[in-house]
């Protein structure tokens, strides 16, 4: 037990850890938004609702079929991703030729539907999700207590983020994807099924959100509004980082999570608003975003 700037180390590192956890979710969600925006030119407002659906799916799997956390971590993203694919086929595909803003309005409407339906069936209060035995407990590092589960969340989301980066930047599929982002007509001319690629990309982005949702379930309670509160912060993260680069989204996600955590220690009143204040500063200094290219 020691103090840094008059703050007990346990509080400081504890909040830093919470910051990293929140940062993991920011990173995963803004990554998904960036991937979807790259291919579909749509800002997926439903992303928060799909994050929530991931958590709800994990909860339902445990409650009704007894399927535990580890399987849910795979199954829930597949289920929610499949729902995403249906959404793309039934709704989104009709508006690609319209102004981008219609995409925002459409996905906002879909988010309201998903949230409203879940509120009716789950109620507004949170439902607890119990951790698997293997992830309970933690390490006492002397200067702080480190719960195992939180370490797992950070490691898992970092790996998924890096994996996605590798998939898009270093593999053949990723090369097709980047090419189709630049010039879909030309890529189609080479015999690649671009519409299917768009559908799968949306499904993948949604699955990322659901994956984050499953990991969030044991930390926050599973509640219908867990996504809508988060998605607006993630929008700010996206404005700060710019959606041009995968690593940019990941870095700004984690970075802002940490800053938010530290703010909670030194200036708790501002912890909810600090991300937005940083957004304002970034808009003043670098309007295109930290990692963005000028449009």
């Amino acid at each position: 037990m020691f103090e840094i700037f008059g703050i007990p180390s346990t509080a400081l590192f504890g909040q830093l850890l919470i910051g990293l956890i929140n940062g993991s979710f920011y990173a995963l969600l803004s990554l998904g938004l960036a991937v979807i925006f790259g291919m579909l030119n749509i800002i997926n407002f439903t992303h928060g609702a799909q994050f929530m659906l991931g958590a709800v799916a994990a909860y339902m799997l445990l409650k009704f079929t007894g399927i535990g956390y580890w399987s849910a971590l795979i199954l829930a993203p597949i289920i929610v991703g499949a729902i995403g694919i249906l959404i793309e086929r039934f709704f989104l595909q009709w508006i690609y030729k319209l102004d981008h803003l219609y995409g925002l309005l459409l996905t906002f409407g879909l988010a309201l539907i998903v949230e409203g339906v879940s509120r009716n069936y789950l109620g507004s209060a949170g439902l607890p999700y119990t951790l698997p035995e293997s992830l309970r407990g933690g390490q006492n590092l002397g200067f702080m207590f480190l719960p195992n589960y939180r370490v797992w969340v950070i490691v898992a989301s970092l790996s998924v983020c890096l994996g996605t980066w590798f998939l898009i930047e270093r593999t053949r599929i990723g090369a097709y994807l980047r090419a189709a982002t630049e010039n879909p007509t030309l890529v189609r001319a080479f015999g690649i099924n671009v519409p299917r690629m768009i559908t799968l990309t949306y499904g993948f982005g949604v699955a990322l959100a659901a994956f984050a949702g499953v990991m969030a379930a044991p930390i926050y309670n599973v509640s219908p509004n867990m996504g809508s509160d988060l998605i607006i912060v993630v929008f700010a993260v996206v404005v700060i980082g710019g959606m041009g680069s995968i690593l940019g989204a990941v870095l700004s996600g984690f970075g802002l999570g940490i800053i938010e955590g530290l703010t909670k220690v030194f200036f708790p009143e501002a912890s909810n608003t600090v991300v937005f204040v940083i957004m304002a500063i970034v808009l003043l200094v670098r309007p295109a975003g930290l990692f963005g290219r000028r449009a």
Partner: protein
Amino acid sequence: MTERVADPMTQQPSLWRQQSETIGFVVMVVALVVAPFVTYPLFLMQAMCFALFACAFNLLIGYVGLLSFGHALYFGWASYLAAYSAKAWGFTPEFAILTGTATAALCGFLAGALAIRRQGIYFAMTTLAFAQMMYFVALRMKFTGGEDGIQAVPRGYLFGLIDLRNESAMYVVVLVIFLAGFMLIHRIINSPFGEVLKAIRENETRAISLGYKTDRYKLLAFVLSATLAGVAGSTKAILVQIASLTDVNWPMSGEVVLMSLVGGLGTIFGPVAGSFVILTLQYKLSFLGEWLLVIQGVIFVACVLLFRRGIVGEIANRLRIRL
């Protein structure tokens, strides 16, 4: 963003086509004067506040092509300041409304100056983020009353003379404010300034190359829109005697988008029609509880996929008139 309506000036228009906006306006005024004898005045007054709010929002999306997803900020903060100044400082209603409006104008200037530095989709996200920030500020600050809001706001005496607890007097005041705001917006849209705004909507790069400082035009339009949203919010706070977190939270921003979309983006009367339709739905279907949110979502989806012109836009397009 708006569906183009066939230009009625290309063929020789008949007189009633030329005057379609005037006719529409007269119909609206007559309807609003007669309506309180037919249905609940309080409902109509609330609907007029929301109609003005939606018209202010539509000024940006319909005529400058800027989608603000954070208009609850100006509406909500104006209602807080109007309510607080009326209750705590004993302001008369007209000064309370002015206080709220000034607050909205200031917020609009600050948020607008930053938000217009980004275009399109980023603009929408930025405005939403700023609104959420100010929601948290409202949640934290003492004077807003947090979760309780500011309750039992006195309606007071207009100019120190007219007792607004009288429903008829209140109705006239709200009607006058609504019509004044509506006519101001109509005037803005049809002024040379409004023509530049439309040029920016169509092709901003071209407007810049013609020598217009588009950022200034966009900022002024943003401030005007926020200010009028503030008038609506302040009036509503005095009318219903409550200012609460609902008015400043993101679902409110979504609601005003929905109202304008249903009525018809980029039409003069669309937002008015839209807000009356949405409020009527909310009122008639209030027994559905949380399902109302689902219904709103369905209307959003249906409007974007099938009905982008909105009610008024569709009528205007069928009859080939401007509304």
